[in-house]
Each structure stands twice: as structure tokens, then as C-alpha cells.
């Protein structure tokens, strides 16, 4: 189902990866021959492609201590536990004996961002293979030492053991940096049927500290001599600081310094609450020039529709499709929605001896380092970024901005660690939101009730304005010498950004799919869990039900009619079966809905069925139960997958039912949880079931974002089933539903 256009970039990437390996391994003449023939050597697995040295991933000390390094970050998604499971499995040791070091520019491989549900594919694959190759090297070294054939030895419990019972500990074998070697393309992986750890629900290593008050978050760091900072943000986009009399604030208790640089205004104090009190006083004293730069909320979508854009083809078949027997068309909208982390963003910076250390909950320590180095005009080697967990981020929230604050303020106050945390209203009004989007779809059915043609257009800003440059850090916009946000480049297919999942996985003989990319931002936007997939899947899956209705087909059967991929069919069949789709009895005021997608058409498969109840008088829709089936390839930690999927379903139901960022011509009006309500316990479903299809030996497929879109589609379809109304605008608020049913 991947069309020619979409496939091209990925093939190029594979070739580039292959060529890289070939150039290490083969003589130039052979390299040339390989390139000409286009038959590259097999690429190294996962992130070994970019960091091929085994000891960059796994270090074993002479005392037997094992350290595993990953460039990915624990974000509360459970990645640390799964990576330890993988390493422990292949090194044949107990997980508790492994120390894992996560994203740190001074210590770990550069694996870019922890995003896009890539961690298991990239880092998990690299660590699993590196561990297997390290084990083979250790067994070989022990065999040499004991003068036995390697087959007569096995690794176990941190040692290599011979058939005759002789035993050499790993620590005794690692002299001479025997792990300082390049990875090979293939590893002798443990047969999945002998797995001790992979595929077992392993308890998360980070949970005990989180439930007992341990130091678990960057917010909890208390470095010796640390001071606290708060920033006074402008009240609106583009506002400039006209005047501020900071003298009274400077004499407030505990205040150490007021920092002003252009329109950037902050205060540093001994104690956190002193910093907050001073920030408030400073905010009262500050005078701003504001200009109305925004459309009104009511005209948002017509405004978005008028913005200049660039057309990016996703799939455009040539020729003309057969005339349809029946046609259906619809348009859909999605409001701006926020990450809304429960803990506002935070970072600690220490500037000493012309070098900066940052403790940050960024998703990308290396890109952040580059951006901060540019911001402070330092060489990148002078900046170290260490990732420490923060509150769940669900994409690019204000983590990097807070890190930039810590960088600017640490430099303004060198020698002592400076901790800065944002306030609730700052996080709400300045974080980069998930973009507002418009979609338009029309399709024709043939006489057999199958889709014969499909026309689709999605209009959106790009979905990533992540760092890499100083201009991606919001504090940089307000300095006396401001750095502007660079115009984002669309993320190329097959992953895509605004067009992520714009291409349905369904069999469609003729398709014309276009991404109508709007470069100029209205509200500040960036990556929110799932990127464009949330809206594209909501649209496609709502529309599939509209088509099924036209074809007088059952929605599940209609989807299966258009799917060949057996793994897609399996998750759909399983979810429908466990939900009780075929013998469902509708109670008054209730309805059922179904939706499916394969995330990015490359990642995990997910099908979601929900039952929802509509309260007629109020228009309030509530998900009563949800049943999901997923296939993430080999399931390393099935309970970790279930946790992510459950969370994805609840979070997406909150987005889908309640959430839109409010604004007036000048300011963001969603400034707290009462002006931006989200899911609370009273509206949580009675049950959420997740069925994981494990595929031992198959590649890992990213899971974390897989149910954002399907949940939205399933809820809209359940509303249509319950009340006979189709709402095509997200969120499906009670007011909107009330209006549609006419109460």
C-alpha cells in the first residue's frame, strides 16, 4: 500500500545506511561495485547504524558491573525497564544487575529525539543486538582462555561456564577493551522460545521511587547551593516590554538578581517561594506593548483556509478513475489542543568555568545542546545536557524552553545551580500546541460497495518546531537580540507530519491525497503525540463509517473488505470479538464505534472499539468501555504496552471530548484547568481492555502513539451510532452535541 512517492525517501535511507556499513567493511573497489549494483550490505540493526561501537552501548567493568547506555529518554513510557529487559536477556544476567544510563550528551550515543514511538525500534534493537554480540565476544574469549570450542561454553549469570564446570566471570574477560569493536550486521540472538525476560510483564524500575517520594523528577533535584528562578512571560505573542521598575523587587526577601534582556524578564532568589513572590511583583510592575495578531476563535478555520500554503503530494495516481456508483464527501476540523503536562516544565542549569551543564526533561539532549550552544554563543562541547524525567510530556512541550531559561539564567548567575520551573498559566499559554487542522475527503463506491476512488486533502501547519537551532527555543524570541523561529520544514513521508497517516492502509484502487502545508503559524505549535495522525485517522475512520453507511455494510466488515494485511485484519478481528461486536445490543442512549490504524503505516497496529453513552439533556458523551487490540511486533514488556495503550485511549478521549485552546485577538484564554478542562475521574470509562498480540522474533513496532487516532474515530462513530448524528469537528463537546441533536 505504500505508493511510489512515499516509498522513495525510505529506500534512500536504507541505501545510505548500507553504504555507510560497506564503506567501513569493504575495499573501495567493492564499495563501488556494490553501489552500482544497488545491492548494499545489510545495514546495522537499529541505532547501531549511527553508533556502531559496541562499548558505546554496553560497558562491563573488571568488577563485573554492567552499564548499558541509551540515547533515548525515560519519559514515563517505561522505556528504561524494557531496555534493561533486552540487555539482561541477551547478556544472560538478572535485570537488577544492570545499570542503565539514559540520554546524556557526555555519556550516551546520540539517538536524536525520544519521539515518534521510535525508542524500541532504534535503541531497543541496538541494545539487544549489541548485548548479543557482546555475549558472543565474551564466550569466545573464555573459550580461548579455557582452550575449548565456544559451543562447549555458555553464558549465564554474568559468567561464561564450561561444560566441565569451569567458570570465568565477565569481569575477568573484559581486559584489553574487547568490546571496543564495531558491531556486525547480524547477531546470534537468543531464540525467542528460550526467552526468560522478553515478553514477560516486567515491573517498571521507576515506579517504587515515584510512589514513595524518592527523587524521581528533574523537579526534585536539589543540588548543593541551588537557587530558584522564575520568568515573567509576555502576556501575549509578540508583546514587548515597554518599561519595568525592578528596584522594589530587588529588595524583596531572598531576591538575588533581576535579569532583563530585551523583553526577557526573570528573577533569581534563594528560595522557591521567594522567587514566585518576586515574579508576581515583577509582573505587576511590567508594562507591555501588545498587538492583536490573532483571528477570533470563531473565524479560526476560515482564517486557516485562507493562509498561503504549499501542496505536497502524498499519493497521486494518474489516469482517471472509473465513475462511481455512489459518492460521499465530508469536511472535518480539529481545534488547537495542548500537551498539558501536569507538572509545569522545569530545568536546572549550572554555569561554571565557561561551561554549562543542564538537567532537563527534553526529548532530545543533542538537538537541545546544539540550540543552547547557539543561543549562548558557546562551543557545543561547552554544553552538557543530562536528561532527567519530568512530568509526562506527550511530545514537544515547554521542556526545551525551560532548559533555555535555565541556560540564560545560569549564565547570568554563574557558580550556583539555578532551578527554574514554569507556572501553570505560563505552561498553558506558551507551550507549543498540537495544530488546528482541516481535512476534506470524498470517495466513490463501486457497485459491489467497495471504495473505487478516494480524494483527500489535509491542511495544517507542520507538526514539529523542535530544537536544533536557538530560534526553536521560545526564550530566544524575547531577547534584546532576538532569534526568530525558523520556518519549519515538513517532515518527509513515509513518517510525515501534518500528513502522517493521511494515506489510509485500506486498499483503494485510485487515490489523490495531498498535504496542504501552511508554513505560517497562528498559535505556537509543535509535536503533540501522534502529530497529524490524530486528525487524519479521526477523519479517515469517521469517513469509513460514513461510507459503510452508504454501502449498507457493517463498519467492521466494511474495513475488513478493504484490508489485505493479515496483521491489520488480526487486530480488527480480535478487538471486534472481545468487544462483542457481532452480538452487540444497543441500549437506549448508547452506541458503539470502531476504528483502526497502523501508526505511520509503519508502526504498531491498533484497533479500538468503544461503547459510549449520551446524556440527552446535556449533550454529554461518555465512553463507557473501550476494547483495544494491538500488534507491536515482538512485545518486550506486554504490561508496559498495555499501560501505554490504556493511557493513550484515555488521553485521546479527553482530547476528543473536551479539548480546544481558547484565544481572543491578542491572548490565549486557556490559562488553567478551568479554562481548559480535561478528563476527570467521574468521566473515566468503566473498563478499558487491551489485548496485545505478541509476535516473537518480529521487529519492534512503536506503540506509544498508536491509539490516539483510532480512539477519536471510534468515539465519533459511537456518537453517530447512539444518536444518529455525525459531528465532524474536534472536540465533540457537549454544546456541539446538544446543538446537533437539537435540545
Amino acid at each position, binding site marked *: 500500500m505504500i505508493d511510489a512517492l512515499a516509498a522513495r525517501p525510505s529506500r534512500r535511507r536504507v541505501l545510505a545506511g548500507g553504504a555507510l556499513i560497506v564503506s567501513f567493511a569493504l575495499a573501495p573497489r567493492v564499495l563501488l561495485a556494490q553501489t552500482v549494483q544497488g545491492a548494499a550490505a545489510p545495514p546495522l540493526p537499529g541505532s547501531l547504524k549511527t553508533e556502531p561501537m559496541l562499548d558505546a552501548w554496553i560497558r562491563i567493568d573488571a568488577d563485573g558491573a554492567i552499564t548499558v547506555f541509551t540515547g533515548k529518554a525515560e519519559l514515563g513510557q517505561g522505556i528504561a525497564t524494557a531496555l534493561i529487559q533486552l540487555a539482561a536477556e541477551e547478556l544472560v544476567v538478572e535485570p537488577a544487575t544492570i545499570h542503565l544510563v539514559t540520554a546524556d550528551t557526555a555519556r550516551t550515543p546520540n539517538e536524536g529525539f525520544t519521539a515518534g514511538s521510535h525508542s524500541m525500534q532504534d535503541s531497543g534493537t541496538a541494545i539487544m543486538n549489541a548485548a548479543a554480540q557482546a555475549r558472543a565476544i565474551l564466550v569466545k574469549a573464555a573459550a580461548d582462555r579455557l582452550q575449548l570450542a565456544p559451543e562447549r561454553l555458555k553464558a549465564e549469570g554474568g559468567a561464561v561456564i564450561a561444560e566441565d564446570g569451569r567458570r570465568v566471570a565477565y569481569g575477568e574477560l573484559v581486559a584489553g577493551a574487547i568490546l571496543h569493536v564495531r558491531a556486525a550486521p547480524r547477531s546470534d540472538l537468543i531464540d525467542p522460545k528460550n526467552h526468560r525476560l522478553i515478553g514477560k510483564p516486567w515491573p517498571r524500575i521507576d515506579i517504587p521511587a515515584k510512589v514513595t517520594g524518592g527523587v524521581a523528577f528533574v523537579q526534585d533535584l536539589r543540588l548543593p547551593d541551588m537557587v530558584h528562578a522564575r520568568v515573567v512571560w509576555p502576556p501575549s505573542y509578540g508583546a514587548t516590554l515597554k518599561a519595568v521598575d525592578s528596584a522594589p523587587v530587588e529588595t524583596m526577601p531572598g531576591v538575588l538578581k533581576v535579569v532583563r534582556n530585551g523583553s526577557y524578564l526573570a528573577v533569581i532568589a534563594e528560595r522557591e517561594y521567594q522567587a514566585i513572590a518576586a515574579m508576581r511583583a515583577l509582573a505587576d510592575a511590567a508594562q507591555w506593548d501588545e498587538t492583536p495578531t490573532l483571528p477570533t476563535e470563531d473565524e479560526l478555520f476560515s482564517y486557516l483556509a485562507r493562509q498561503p500554503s504549499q501542496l505536497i503530494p502524498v499519493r497521486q495516481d494518474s489516469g482517471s478513475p472509473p465513475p462511481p456508483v455512489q459518492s460521499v464527501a465530508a469536511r472535518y476540523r480539529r481545534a488547537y489542543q495542548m500537551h498539558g503536562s*501536569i507538572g509545569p516544565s522545569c530545568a536546572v542549569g549550572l554555569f561554571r568555568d565557561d561551561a554549562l551543564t543542564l538537567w532537563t526533561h527534553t526529548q532530545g539532549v543533542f538537538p537541545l545542546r546544539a540550540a543552547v550552544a547557539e543561543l549562548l554563543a558557546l562551543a557545543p562541547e561547552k554544553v552538557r545536557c543530562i536528561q532527567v524525567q519530568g512530568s509526562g510530556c506527550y511530545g514537544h512541550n515547554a521542556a526545551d524552553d525551560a532548559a533555555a531559561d535555565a541556560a540564560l539564567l545560569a549564565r547570568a548567575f554563574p557558580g550556583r545551580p539555578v532551578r527554574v520551573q514554569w507556572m*501553570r498559566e505560563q505552561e498553558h499559554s506558551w507551550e507549543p500546541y498540537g495544530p488546528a487542522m482541516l481535512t476534506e475527503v470524498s470517495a466513490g463506491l463501486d457497485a459491489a460497495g467497495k471504495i473505487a476512488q478516494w480524494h483527500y486533502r489535509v491542511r495544517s501547519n507542520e507538526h514539529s518546531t523542535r530544537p536544533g537551532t536557538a530560534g526553536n527555543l521560545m526564550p530566544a524570541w524575547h531577547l534584546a537580540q532576538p532569534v526568530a523561529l525558523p520556518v519549519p520544514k515538513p517532515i518527509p513521508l513515509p513518517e510525515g507530519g501534518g500528513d502522517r497517516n493521511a494515506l489510509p492502509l485500506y486498499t483503494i484502487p485510485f487515490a489523490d491525497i495531498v498535504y496542504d502545508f501552511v508554513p505560517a503559524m497562528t498559535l505556537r505549535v509543535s509535536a503533540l503525540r501522534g502529530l497529524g495522525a490524530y486528525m487524519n485517522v479521526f477523519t479517515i475512520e469517521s469517513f469509513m463509517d460514513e461510507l459503510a453507511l452508504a454501502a449498507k455494510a457493517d463498519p467492521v466488515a466494511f474495513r475488513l473488505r478493504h484490508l489485505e494485511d493479515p496483521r491489520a485484519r488480526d487486530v480488527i478481528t480480535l478487538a471486534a470479538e472481545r468487544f462483542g461486536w457481532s452480538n452487540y445490543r444497543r441500549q437506549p442512549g448508547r452506541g458503539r464505534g470502531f476504528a483502526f490504524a497502523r501508526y505511520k503505516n509503519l508502526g504498531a497496529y491498533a484497533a479500538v472499539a468503544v461503547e459510549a453513552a449520551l446524556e440527552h439533556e446535556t449533550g454529554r458523551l461518555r465512553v463507557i468501555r473501550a476494547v483495544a487490540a494491538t500488534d507491536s511486533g515482538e512485545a518486550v514488556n506486554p504490561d508496559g504496552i498495555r499501560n501505554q495503550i490504556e493511557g493513550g485511549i484515555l488521553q485521546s478521549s479527553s482530547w476528543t471530548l473536551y479539548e480546544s485552546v481558547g484565544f481572543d485577538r491578542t491572548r490565549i484564554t486557556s490559562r488553567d484547568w478551568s479554562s481548559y478542562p480535561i478528563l476527570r475521574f467521574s468521566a473515566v470509562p468503566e473498563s478499558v481492555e487491551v489485548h496485545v498480540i505478541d509476535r516473537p522474533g518480529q521487529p519492534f513496532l512503536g506503540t506509544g502513539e498508536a491509539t490516539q487516532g483510532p480512539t477519536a474515530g471510534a468515539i465519533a462513530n459511537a456518537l453517530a451510532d447512539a444518536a444518529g448524528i455525525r459531528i465532524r469537528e474536534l472536540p465533540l463537546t457537549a454544546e456541539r452535541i446538544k446543538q446537533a441533536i437539537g435540545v
Partner: protein
Amino acid sequence: MIELTVNGTPHRVDVDPATPLLYVLRDELRLNGAKFGCGLGQCGACTVMAEGEAIYSCLTPVAALQGRKITTVEGLGTADNPGPLQRAFIAEQAAQCGYCIAGMILRAQAMLQRNPSPSDGEIRAAMEPNLCRCGTHMRILRAIRRASNEMRTASAQNPTEARP
């Protein structure tokens, strides 16, 4: 000087009496459990117990707690010796990022002390003030149910010792 008893230990703290309890707990007493979420009484991340009642530590000035007994998540057990709710949250793997969890546990603790056998509806109603953005709600509810069962069994077996 304000006197407080936190997790059974008396403390005298020298801060501006208007300082919310949250900052006294975090900065003076160096406890991590109570978290800053909103400072507005809207999210419950800062929830602790004062004399058995769940309170928002972000809003309550420390002066209002003079002489009171405060309990934070650190007072319910340790990683090596977790209390019933902590054990239940671990058993149910009831956390994703976990930022909201200490507040959830304290609110549940206050409810279970008042009502050891809550119905599912009562649990949901009691937890309404606390937000979780990761969508861990189903597991949180299961963990509270599990802890309530465990605490009841324990108190039936040993009525004097097993208060929650």
C-alpha cells in the same frame, strides 16, 4: 517560627507565614512527594493530609497548619517497606510518568481512613479533584480498590495494628 508535625516528626520552620505548605515541604523539609502542578487547587498534584483530611498544599498557607499533623507520601512507607496503598500502586503498575501519583495516593489514603469500604462510585467521586494527564486512571482505581481490600483483610485479622 511555625511548628508542624510532618510524618510524625515535629519541625519548626522559619518562613513567611503566608508561604504555602507545598514550599515548606519541598524546600525546607526536602520532601519530594507533594508536587507543584497548578498552584490553584485545580489538579491535586500537591495533595497531602492534614489531620486526616486531604488538602491542597499549594494553597494552604503554612500559618494555617500551626501545630497540625501533616502526612505526605513519604509518611506512608518507603521503597523497601511500602505501605498498603504504595504496595497496591506498585502491584497494579499504576503510574506512567508518575507526577500525579503521590497526590493520588494521599487523596485515596484520606478517603480510605474515612471510609474503608468505598464503592467504585465513591472512589471516583473522592478522586475527582485530582488530574492525571497520562491516562493512568484505570490502574489508579484498581490500585485503590486493591489497597482497600488488603487493608480490610488486614484489619479483620488484626484489628488493633492494621489501621491504614
